[in-house]
């Protein structure tokens, strides 16, 4: 079994013991980041393949890797984007134009620092984990606004404004859905939120908080500007929206951020409503059996389902009109969450449901 221990010892002899831990953390963080970006790369391939199959096409099948047609497509895309010219339009605000992609990408990656991949396996086991997630997620809008404004192009500006108003509207619904999860768990710590759902699929939050789960997932799709809420990009109306003037690697950063955010929303859906790393057999099989063990395996497996949902939605639904988006966000999702928060309060008060530590 390969362990960290020898490397840790060598590292601590190389640099003083004081710095060994942060450096080690940094190495691990880098590995997780590259892992996430690799998953994201293959997610783009999965998207093209799955939507292809849904539309009776083959999807990408030219770039072979390990004799599998199409498997090398993400790497081919990366190489292509690397060697493309990065354009900075003449009328653009040069500094902000270059900063905007980073402002989208850093929050998207930073949220992964509080995600527990397995029991006790999060980089930052902070007490206010959920609050941190909501705060970081609200920073994503800056990249979009700045990109649209800095480019000094009408399409980009329109896309940015649409996107900002939309993200802002759905963030409220998302926040209220999170309040419901908090009421159930009684803690902001992500690990505790998962542990509080212990006891098999029926005691996971989705069962008692089903409306909140639906609202959260829909708001997540809207927050990431994915179809059917992709008016910010809207190829047929404003060509590509806020990143129309970006090319090459600058565009790739937006692209990475968008897909990393999709994976993140999927992971968070699983954590909040489907028990994170808890095993679905937990509570049915004896706790000692192999299948009932919690772990990364279950977390990863469950996360794939909402990830597939993103692609399915895109292949199924036509784009919403802007007034319809605003109506859904303000007039449907927010009232639904408020009503369900009230119901949940009554349930907790009347000792109905699996919630620990009733009032």
């Amino acid at each position: 079994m390969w362990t960290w221990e020898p490397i840790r010892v060598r590292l601590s002899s190389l640099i003083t013991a004081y710095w060994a831990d942060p450096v080690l953390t940094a190495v691990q963080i880098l590995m997780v980041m590259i892992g996430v970006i690799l998953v994201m790369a293959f997610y783009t391939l999965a998207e093209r393949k799955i939507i292809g199959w849904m539309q009776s096409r083959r999807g990408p099948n030219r770039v072979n890797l390990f004799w599998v047609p199409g498997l090398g497509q993400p790497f081919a895309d990366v190489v292509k984007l690397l060697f493309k010219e990065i354009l900075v339009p003449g009328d653009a605000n040069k500094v902000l134009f270059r900063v905007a992609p980073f402002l989208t990408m850093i929050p998207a990656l930073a949220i992964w620092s509080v995600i527990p991949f397995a029991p006790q396996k999060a980089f930052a086991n902070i007490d206010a984990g959920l609050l941190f997630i909501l705060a970081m997620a609200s920073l994503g809008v800056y990249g979009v606004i700045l990109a649209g404004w800095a480019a000094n192009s009408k399409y980009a500006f329109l896309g940015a404004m649409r996107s900002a108003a939309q993200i802002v509207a759905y963030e409220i619904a998302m926040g209220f859905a999170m309040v419901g999860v908090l009421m159930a768990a009684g803690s902001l710590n992500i690990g505790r939120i998962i542990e509080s759902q212990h006891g098999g699929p029926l005691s996971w939050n989705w069962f008692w908080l089903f409306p909140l789960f639906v609202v959260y997932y829909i708001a997540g799709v809207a927050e990431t500007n994915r179809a059917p809420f992709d008016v910010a990009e809207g190829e047929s109306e404003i060509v590509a929206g806020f990143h129309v003037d970006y090319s090459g690697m600058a565009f790739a950063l937006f692209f990475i951020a968008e897909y990393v955010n999709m994976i993140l929303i999927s992971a968070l859906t699983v954590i909040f409503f489907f028990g994170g790393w808890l095993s679905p057999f937990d509570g049915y099989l004896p706790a000692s059996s192999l299948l009932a063990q919690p772990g990364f395996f279950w977390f990863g497996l469950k996360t794939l389902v909402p990830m597939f949902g993103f692609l399915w939605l895109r292949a199924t639904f036509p784009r919403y009109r802007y007034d319809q988006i605003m109506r859904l966000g303000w007039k449907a999702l927010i009232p639904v969450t408020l009503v369900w928060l009230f119901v949940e309060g009554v349930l907790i008060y009347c000792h109905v449901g699996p919630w620990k530590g009733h009032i």
Partner: protein
Amino acid sequence: MMFETLLFFAFSAVLVGAAFGVILARNPVYSALLLVLCFFNSAVIWLMLDAEFLGIVLVLVYVGAVMVLFLFVVMMLDVNLEELRKGLAGYWPIAAVVAGLMVFAILDVVVVKHLGGVSLGAAPPLPADYSNTRVLGEALFTRYAYPAQIAAVILLVASIAAIVLTLRHRPGVKPQNVGEQVRVSAKDRVRLVKMAPEKRP
């Protein structure tokens, strides 16, 4: 401890620098963004003071919401700042008075209360399962429940004021009414008319 002190000075330095940038930048968009940086650094400093909830809420509310509104205004109003700046220099006496008062207030806290004999002392160590948010929630919804309600009333007034001030209905728009569309029945849309077949001449 050493490392924390270092971090504190680093973030404070950036904070002060960014704050100067906010008032010195010529482009209002840069000012707004530097203000974001200010909030971010203050949030980190609050975190270092164990004010976990407030620190993150500062990012959530000010950076994630208030500054977005600021950016909207600054970017879309398209104001010509040079014109606005023209008469600005004449206001320096008022600015000096306000600045003097603020410096006095800060000196009062830092020098007189802290250095002048009354030591604030080190904060007591926190228990192991201390949750900043929970403690705050307990205080807010038991002891300070009444101020919390007043805050809710203020927020209500704010949203009403915003609507009264900005909402203008454009005449002549025909919005889609989903309720009406759903409630419609075949009877309202199609009229079946009974009529005798026409005779062939």
